[in-house]
């Protein structure tokens, strides 16, 4: 198993370099392209949500990331220092009345792409699990 633990200041320009680092690590596990796409997207959505909506892009606040990768799964925990949020209060982004609202799409995508999603600490943290397949 490989692990990454990192504390990122809440600046959006920190997202892409961190994801690149994660992708380098995941390459060693020969994940399928589809799984890699889903993990990358869910990680980007969770990190940008934590920085933008959780920490309000305050660079003095941090986002803590813990990743564990093994042969069967990828587990990602992302936690911000904001006020937390309640997923149930987000509208369905596929509903016509919500189609023009920008929020909620990232949260919805994570639900679609991950095998397990669990919010903790009043919504300040999210744990995402992707069960992985090897490349054919």
């Amino acid at each position, binding site marked *: 198993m490989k692990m990454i633990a990192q504390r990122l200041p809440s600046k959006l320009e920190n997202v892409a370099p961190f994801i690149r680092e994660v992708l380098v690590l995941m390459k060693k596990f020969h994940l399928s392209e589809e799984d890699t796409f889903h993990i990358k997207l869910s990680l*980007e959505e969770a990190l940008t949500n934590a920085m933008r909506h959780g920490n309000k892009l305050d660079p003095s606040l941090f986002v803590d990331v813990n990743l564990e990768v093994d042969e069967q799964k990828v587990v990602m925990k992302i936690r911000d220092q904001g006020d937390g949020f309640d997923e149930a209060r987000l509208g369905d982004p596929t509903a*016509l009345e919500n*189609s*023009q609202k*920008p929020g909620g*799409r990232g949260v919805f995508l994570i639900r679609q792409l991950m095998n397990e999603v669990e919010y903790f600490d009043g919504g300040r943290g999210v744990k995402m699990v992707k069960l992985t397949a090897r490349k054919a």
Partner: protein
Amino acid sequence: MSLEIKVQEREPGVYLITPVGEINTDTALDFEKTSREFLPKAKAFVFDLERMTYISSMGLSSFFRIKQSIEEKGGTILLVHVSAQVQKVFDVVKIFSEAMMASLEQADEHLDSFLDDVQKGKIEPKSSSA
């Protein structure tokens, strides 16, 4: 994770825009800004997504705002060559499903019909609240 954007005016007011790379947190605003530069003259944007390897919800929001802007002036957008993985992201906002075309030829046919309807006054600009 860089993005290159190629733009070709296929006929007056009809722009073929080809993003090459990823539309993510870093690149979404540049993509939107570049597309908007052609908005004043645009009747239609055709986005060829064959070489767009990734899109996040930030990119999705950019596409959504571009769609709103061009529809407000009576134009339209079409998406061609959308991969299965990218389509899954677009499916979050279901209103893009009618804009998806399998090929440029299909997009051309659709546009011919659309522009014909515009000339005949059958299509009105959409308000942003519609």
